[in-house]
């Protein structure tokens, strides 16, 4: 194994990518297609709902705390000025995200050919990454920016102006790149690697310009000093950008990538420590992963998927080369016993899994004999794998069962998010089509009968997106005399003189994350539409005829 710029390069022998160009094209195509699927199918939900609501308010000149002046939010506001659909906004995010395969391709000298390809594959199937990189949240450009920053960091011949542009982009982006920036800063300071005078000036100018432009909200007016990455970093702790917590989302969608990445990080750190030599880039990559991990850990109870994406990027960069190395080792491994034991273990585990699935469908654990059977199968599977693992030369063969184990949940999550249904915890809470139908009914009624469309203050934020472009609403906590239609809390008593419009009317809906027991997860695994859905419901009242 050789080291180029500190990130270990996989030996060329052993594992070869057949028709490398074809593989790159296939993975890149998968990268784009999965995101295109999300673009067309996903409901507006979670951080996107907040982002689009804020951008819409900004586009009509209204102040709203959900508008955080990132460059992407400003672009979103501009696009919503032209079209009230979320699609153009998502398209901009998608275009930027689709540059990531190119960025990873440029990292081949550092990650190795196979390592880079596997890194891209991991990023392709990262469900939270799909959601963040294709949605109209305030952080639509963050994923691409973060990856490109790492690419820029790993090149030494950058023109000075790039430093300024980079600083401007960071200052007007979301928080996704903060762990990388912090890692570069800390490691640079420890290693006494400072930018040159010109680079420092470019950095300071870019950052100052970015903060200034953001503080003027890209021309929408001054509302005090704003540093968007800091504002959004903080907002992730204060607001609900997903109905599930970061920890729950990690378990549901990203566990395989996190496990592979953390294992790779551990191995790389150990090797660097043993060799007492780690390149600058390796230390930065490890520090980046560590800081992102800390962010995820402290956010574990926050309803915020962003730290998960922030961690999956460096872990993919670490896991890609490590997987390539593991695959190469796998092909050189001692298969003498493993060729029997590994398939047998997979078969036994599959039988146990099948039985568990039947329990999950019935939502209860089966009889004692079934339990004994499942336990026995699992003991057999793990014993077989343990026996294989005891032989150091056969150890790499365990990659196959590990791969099988990781593949199913990862693919299920990836497709679940990419071909998103309203029953997927990511993104959520989402604005259902019913909310838009309610808008049509309400506006027609007001147009026909006159009077005001009145919304209760407690529902104001929930209807911002679905009731966009609906003229002027009255936000009132008590029924005004000239009200024609009331959108009222579901638990409030019926106002006198008003008839209810048969409901209930869902303004937001959130599937409950299938956590708490493995059976819940397995049930959801087999049937994505099995989750309980909680809703923010409203009662709709129409004034009685006089």
């Amino acid at each position: 194994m050789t080291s180029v710029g500190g990130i270990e390069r996989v030996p060329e022998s052993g594992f070869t990518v057949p028709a490398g160009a074809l593989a790159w094209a296939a993975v890149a195509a998968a990268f784009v297609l999965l995101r295109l699927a999300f673009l067309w199918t996903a409901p507006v939900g979670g951080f996107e709902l907040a982002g689009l609501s804020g951008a819409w308010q900004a586009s009509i000149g209204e102040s709203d705390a959900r508008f955080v002046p990132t460059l992407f939010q400003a672009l979103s506001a501009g696009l919503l000025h032209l079209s009230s659909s979320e699609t153009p906004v998502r398209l901009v995010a998608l275009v930027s995200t689709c540059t990531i395969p190119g960025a990873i391709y440029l990292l081949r000298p550092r990650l190795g050919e196979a390592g880079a390809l596997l890194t891209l594959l991991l990023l392709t199937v990262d469900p939270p990454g799909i959601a963040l990189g294709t949605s109209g949240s305030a952080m639509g450009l963050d994923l691409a920016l973060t990856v490109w920053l790492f690419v820029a960091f790993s090149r030494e011949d950058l023109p000075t102006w790039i430093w300024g542009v980079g600083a401007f982009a960071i200052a007007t982006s979301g928080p996704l790149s903060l762990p990388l920036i912090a890692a570069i800063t800390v490691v640079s300071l420890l290693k006494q690697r400072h930018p040159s005078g010109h680079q420092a000036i470019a950095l300071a100018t870019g950052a100052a310009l970015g903060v200034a432009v953001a503080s003027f909200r890209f021309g929408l007016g001054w509302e005090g000093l704003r540093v968007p990455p800091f504002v959004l970093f903080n907002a992730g702790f204060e607001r609900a950008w997903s109905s599930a917590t970061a920890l729950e989302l990690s378990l549901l969608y990203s566990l395989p990538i996190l496990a592979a990445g953390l294992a790779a990080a551990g191995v790389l750190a150990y090797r660097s420590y043993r060799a007492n030599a780690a390149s600058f880039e390796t230390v930065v990559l490890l520090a980046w992963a560590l800081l992102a991990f800390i962010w995820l850990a402290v956010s574990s109870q926050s309803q915020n998927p962003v730290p998960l994406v922030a961690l999956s990027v460096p872990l993919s960069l670490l896991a890609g080369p490590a997987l390539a190395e593991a695959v190469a080792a796998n092909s050189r491994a001692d298969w003498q016993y493993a060729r029997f034991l590994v398939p047998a273990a997979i078969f036994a585990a599959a039988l146990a899994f099948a039985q568990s699935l039947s329990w999950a469908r019935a939502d209860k654990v089966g009889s004692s004999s079934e339990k004994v059977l499942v336990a026995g199968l699992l003991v057999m599977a793990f014993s077989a794998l343990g026996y294989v693992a005891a032989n150091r030369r056969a150890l790499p063969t365990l990659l196959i069962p590990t791969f099988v184990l990781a593949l199913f949940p990862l693919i299920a999550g990836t497709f679940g998010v990419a071909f998103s249904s309203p029953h997927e915890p990511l993104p959520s809470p989402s604005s259902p089509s019913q909310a838009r139908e309610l808008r049509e009914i309400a506006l027609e009624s007001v147009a026909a009968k006159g009077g005001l469309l009145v919304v209760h203050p407690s529902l104001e934020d929930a209807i911002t997106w679905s009731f966009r472009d609906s003229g002027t609403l009255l936000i009132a906590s008590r029924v005004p005399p000239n009200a024609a239609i009331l959108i009222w809390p579901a638990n409030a008593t019926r106002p006198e003189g008003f008839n209810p419009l048969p409901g209930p009317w869902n303004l937001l809906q959130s599937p409950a994350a299938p956590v708490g027991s493995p059976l819940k997860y397995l049930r959801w695994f087999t049937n994505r539409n099995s989750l309980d859905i909680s809703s923010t419901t409203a009662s709709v009242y129409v004034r009685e005829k006089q």
Partner: protein
Amino acid sequence: MSEVLAFWAVSLLIGALALPIAFSLLRRLPDAGAGLSFALGLVLAGYGYFLLRVLHVIPQGRGGYLLVLALLGICSAAVAGRDRRFHATFRRAWPGCLTAAGIFTLCFFTYVSFRSYNADIGGTEQPMDFMYLNAALTSPEYPPHDPWLAGERASYYYFGYLQAGVLTATAGVPASTGYNLSLAYTFGAAAVGIASLAFALTRWAIGPRARTWALGAGVLAVTFLLFVGSLSAIFEWSAAHGNYNRSVYETFGLGWMIPCALGAAVAPSAETDCYKGAVADRTAAWYPTEFWFWWRGSRIIPGTITEFPFFSFLLGDLHPHVMSIPLVLLSLGLSASLWRGRRRLAWATHRASPFPGLALALVFGALAFQNAWDLLTFSAVFALAVLARNFRRGPPREALLGAAGFLLPVFVVAVLAYLPWYLDFSSQAGGFAPYVGAGTRPAHAFLQFSPLLGAALLALTWAFRRAGRAPLANALAATGWLPMLPLLGWMLLSTSNGDFSAALEARGAGGWLTLALYGGTAWLLVAASLVLGLRSSGAAYGVALLAVGAMLLYGAELFVIKDVFFGSVPRLNTVFKLSYQVWILLSLGGSVAMTAALQRATSGRSRAGWLALPVGLLGCAGLVYPILATANRTDGFQKETAIDGLATLARSNPAEYALTRWIQENTDPGDVVIEASGRTWRRDASGTPAVTDAGNDYSNAGRISARTGRQTPLGWYFHEIQWRGETPANRARFTALQDTVDRAYLGSPAEVLSALRNTGAKYLVVGGGSPSEPSLERLKYIPELLPDYATFLDVAFESGDARVYALPEYRERPTS
């Protein structure tokens, strides 16, 4: 438990992040500052948060706190990267780092265990402390608003609350839990800080080989500072069990502990010099079980508060003078490190390396922001340390000029760095005045300070040895003016006020004797530190701290700092706050002096060193208080445990607790909430509502505001007077605010709406309770006069009989 672990982990993390900076500033200490890095890290993180919030760079919330910690990490990396000796220092100091982490952990969890028996945030000034903690955490603007005076910023030294907020928010625990855990942090940081310093000073005093003795000094210092208490507990313990001798008790000025004569009619509120409670209630166990037993140890000297650290932690008020202990120790450590340095300090020192000066400015500037009383004393120690170092390294003129050139920029930056706070802070100190009342009786001084003063005086058993008669006489002569000057000043001032002859008499024979003892002790200790300093002995700094402590005791007998209590109990705060500083100084210096004395005695170099044994006995006697008081406060460890300060409220009044939580979660941090003013209203003879009790301090008034950080028109009336000045304008304004609030509970719907609009309030609270314990709003007002709010306000929240009403909203919202 997860909250406790998270808080502990964050405390350790902050200490670890500050290690490179501590190494750079405190390298001369044996542990390279590891023991003081907790305080250093928290001060720097707190300052960073304050500054960045004031500049609007970071928003309010947990993310802002985490960003500040990241920034602290970056600063540490910068320092570590530039420090060529960082790795060598780390290799030398890692055992010290581990020991520091161990001491902190032990003390933190020990205090958490104790506090869990008394976790409730209520009584004394705890609501005020909780209010400031919540203000620091939730204020939408910085400098933070004053939740007890809507529309105004805090006018108090609140840096301790801000630091507690850093720990609380970063750990992600609720403020009501963070309050208690911040006390545990302070306990742990104080323990590790003084242990580290005592270890260093002892090694400097008796040589680097005496590691075991130095470790012993660390343990002794922790014991003196955090455990030793008033000796009065022994007397009360004995009296509670019916064993007392009247003449002995009266000799010690403790006649009030002896039960009043049987059959004597004593009103509960009467000022008596005998114990007027029921004798049978004093104890039902081996320790005094009467509730107030533990309190009286802090009121030994009449007309003053003689609080000591153990009492503070027992009481559980998160007060500035308590939270400042780690910072004070850090300032003493920095002064020690500077004093120990080799080269002369001057303006050129800053030019060559500006960052240490900046760090010094931030730490010493923080003294005022955290507890303004500490500023003069510990800045003076700092200045003296710089002067002493320069005098060691050059002629007097150069030493003075160099010291001025070094100190002036530090003090200028210290003021500038905290300018946003100074602009809002209104100090109520009105200068010095001669104290013309009764002096402290020697018996009371003995009960309060004898273990510490005894330990301090042990320094005399070894400081003057080998000094020679002539140098000793010179030192005594040269320092004689130090105790004389304050006395002359006192005489002049009291004469000019026309109080001199009355003051001579009022002080009393006992008062004069105490004054002479304090003055004599101060003189001898100053002379001892001078002798040691001239010999370039490493013990000089420790003895100098003892001298400063003795001078403070002496000074507090002669002068008072004028404040709002000047007219009633003039030296209440002066003795209270200065004796608290004395406790820190004497604990530190005393542990060094005692250890050095014992070391010399056991090595046969000094017989006088065996005097440490009787002093040690006094120290053991001082441990009776913590043992008895702990048993008393925890009901012999039988109470229910919790660490959330609102757990009792959640159990006893679920509706009010739910209301509190609703306000926390559903209102904006900038919202104003009206709640009962705390004044009591009843119908007078003509049936007209009238105020029957206007006092609202130390009550539940402002409770919702205190628990949530939301502003209310006015909280505790007299506390606002203390913070903002006792002026007719303030009195009129605050009374008007109370009138407005009271109209919201007694007036017509129009008056209620007017009260809400005039105070900028969006919500009005009618708290929860039960028929036997009605809510404050139902208790303080006349229930049948409470308006039917639901007819003209929105019911925003209801649970049981608790309600939050909101002003109705009507506004247009364009959507296109």
